[in-house]
């Protein structure tokens, strides 16, 4: 497991490691489709094409293809029509008269627990289903995976949660070499919000693998700590968000004449955009931005690089900027960390006039 800083080139590192392997097949998997595309792009940049022995697949499609389908017969005979993405706990049966949700149980209402009416498997139950399949077949699922892929690389491992972690644990015990790369600071998403392993979600993923003594895992906290993307001032701001973690240093010494962190008054946004052409980053679609210039949500921007960004901050973030001890929720903190570290040269932060 490599704990890597933003901009430290972790995807490049992963891809290079994969390209080095001559014997066996490599799976590179990650949660988001954006990052999957980024990995493919990186491989093509370095190697011109994706070599036969490397498979790049999102975590969900990997689980569906190699976790669910091969031995689903031990749990469920009907044809599973794919995956349905859910943001909250799936399988809602109804509500009590006090408005409390009631969910389909796993044992008695198996089909409704795991599947939508169209027989699509709920994304938050996917890894649980795989885990159960593996349990029922006494390890065949994991065994098959490890026979196909001698190396399994997981990028952005902090996005995995719940039963995903149980599966990773099984994979550690298999014959496959498993390489996890992640940045706990960038825990902006989770594959699921299942109650299982809740305390290890996102930023706390690292702990999960250390609290269990039975897991033998080497952790590298130092080799990918230089942020080659952002300049020193940007790095310093980002480090302040996670004072308890090893501080990243900057590997970008280029100067452009407009370098560092700047406040941009609302009234000056138009001229700022015109002059520096930054990418506008916002928390959600609800934030109003200037049309005509490119724009992205914080979460979406993960893994990408821009010369300059203009951030539309949330209230808690503004509060934190004033006083670094003020309350800032974990996910918000991660999103802001991601947003700031996208920039190479300058970060603009929008403030009231």
């Amino acid at each position: 497991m490599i704990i890597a800083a933003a901009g430290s080139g972790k995807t490049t590192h992963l891809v290079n490691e994969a390209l080095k392997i001559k014997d066996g097949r490599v799976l590179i998997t990650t949660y988001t489709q954006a990052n999957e595309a980024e990995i493919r792009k990186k491989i093509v940049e370095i190697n011109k094409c994706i070599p036969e022995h490397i498979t790049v697949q999102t975590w969900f499609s990997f689980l569906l293809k190699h976790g669910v389908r091969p031995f689903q017969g031990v749990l469920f005979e009907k044809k599973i029509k794919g995956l349905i993405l859910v943001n909250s706990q799936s399988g809602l049966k109804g509500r009590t008269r006090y408005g409390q949700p009631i969910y389909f149980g796993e044992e008695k209402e198996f089909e409704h627990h795991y599947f939508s009416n169209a027989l699509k498997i709920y994304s938050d139950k996917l890894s649980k289903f795989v885990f159960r399949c593996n349990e029922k077949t006494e390890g065949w699922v994991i065994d098959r995976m490890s026979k196909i892929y001698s190396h399994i690389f997981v990028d952005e491992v902090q996005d995995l949660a719940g039963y995903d972690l149980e599966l990773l644990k099984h994979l550690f015990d298999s014959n496959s070499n498993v390489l996890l790369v992640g940045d706990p600071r960038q825990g902006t998403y989770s594959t699921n919000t299942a109650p299982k392993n809740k305390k290890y979600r996102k930023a706390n993923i690292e702990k999960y693998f250390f609290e269990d003594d039975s897991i033998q895992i080497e952790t590298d906290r130092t080799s990918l700590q230089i942020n080659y993307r952002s300049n020193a001032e940007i790095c310093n701001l980002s480090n302040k968000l996670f004072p308890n973690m090893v501080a990243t240093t900057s590997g970008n010494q280029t100067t452009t004449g407009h370098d560092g962190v700047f406040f941009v008054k609302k009234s000056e946004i138009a001229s700022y955009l015109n002059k520096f052409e930054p990418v506008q980053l916002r928390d959600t679609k609800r934030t109003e931005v200037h049309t005509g210039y490119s724009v992205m949500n914080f979460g979406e921007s993960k893994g990408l690089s821009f010369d300059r960004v203009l951030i539309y901050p949330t209230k808690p973030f503004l509060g934190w900027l004033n006083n670094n001890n003020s309350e800032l929720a974990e996910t918000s903190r991660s999103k802001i960390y991601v947003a700031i570290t996208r920039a190479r040269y300058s970060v603009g932060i929008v403030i009231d006039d």
Partner: protein
Amino acid sequence: MHISKIHIENFKIFKGSFKLPLSNGMNILVGDNEAGKSTIIEAIHLALSGLFNGKYLKNELTQYLFNNEVVTEYIQNLEEGNSAAVLPHILIEVFMEGDDLDEFLGDASSEKAATGFFLKIAFDERFQPQYEKLVKLGGIKTLPIEYYNITWSSFARDESITPRTIPLKSALIDSTSSRFQNGSDIYISHIVKEFLELDEIVEVSQAHRRMKESFMDEPSIIKINEKIKSAAKISEKKVELSVELSSKNAWESSLMTYLEDIPFHFIGKGEQSIVKTKLALGHKKAKEANVILMEEPENHLSHSKLNQLISDIKSGSADKQIIVSTHSSFVANKLGLENLIFINDLKRTGLNDLSYDTQKFFKKLSGYDTLRLILCKKAILVEGDSDELVIQKAFQVSNDGKLPIEKGIDVISVGTSFLRFLEIAEKLNKDVVVVTDNDGDIEALKKKYDKYLGDNKKQSIEICFDEDVDTGELEKFNYNTLEPKFLKENSLEKLNKVFGTSYEDDDSMHLYMRAHKTECALNIFDTSEELSFPKYILDAIKQDVP
């Protein structure tokens, strides 16, 4: 890597489920016509290549691929107003063994966890609403094949696999058909392509592209195009003569295989088979394996060519899976009896299913007679050559001069090995008549054939012998063999005529016949005299026996 088993459902002659284990190396399918040998080969080839009758099946689905009875049952069901009649499907499952096949491991097979894949031709559920309407309207007389589709899936339920990604490739060498005389023998291009490595295929297609491009740069072509351009007032747009480069595998369809300057499809079928076989045997790719499917190699080949082909196949079979169907006992014998799989009545028997002693016996035996038994429609087993000739004659007399073999009945001399042959016949459910002497001891005879007489009588097996025990004055003479019985049935005078002899008493004739068995039998066979035959012989040649 090889096919360890094939499972066929509702495909052509196979109604319901048929399973056939196959071994790595040589597999020889023998059996009657219509027993399903060719269908097995067609099924394997279809599952591995998507080809049926040399065409991609995808666009050519027809009801005739389905077992007729199954379709009839479905339609009857519908006619009886049972709207829930289950639409029949075709399933071909290919079980594989070998390295690097883990992706094909899963429990979507008829045998739960297994390695392999299947091809399914089944109703496409997306058409459920249309189908329901159709059923309500009534009057479905044929399978609604337009709502069917064909899919491949690994046992791990990976439906993205195609013949291209299946690591087993099939090379079908089919000398029986004259279907492909239109020139485009898809098999040869298929086989040639499988023979090439990926980078070689890329090189060929690049060269082909360059060739076509240089064609466009030819001054004469440019000139012609100028002319067309100026003449073509059909459209505002540019009209030009060009060569087709768009299709993915353009070179495959426009390149032709030549054999000593003769286009491949102009050479004899026999020679074609030999070339195809050699190409297929020469296929040596690291990550793929080749299954050679061969239909009746004895067709279209002279004896010496056949010999050559067989020795090629045999020497290549060490590291290749080969599945051959044949009617020729010569071919089967040469390729090795231990590899025989008998297909009979849509069931199969391997030599391994026979008792150890019988197996040993047949492996030692030349094998030719075994195969005659396997391949004939009905067999009459006799002890020696003279018995054989007499039976042949008796058959001819009562069948307008036709020999038994012309009616698919083979008369085989088996010496003393009756019981061994009967064991095989029983396994194969083959119609067999045993003609035997009673040797003066009916009880001993009945004991010997205990498994086939009285309460143990098998439907397909008849034991014919003379019920009477005859005696005489000669010492050390067996009055209960065919010759004395034959004399008893005819007169001394008649036999003197037939043999050109002039014996005056029966015993002298007996001694003569014993000393000149074969000669007498030949005389009987050749004579035009009217003869009578003992009842047990007549019983044996009755058409409805057993």
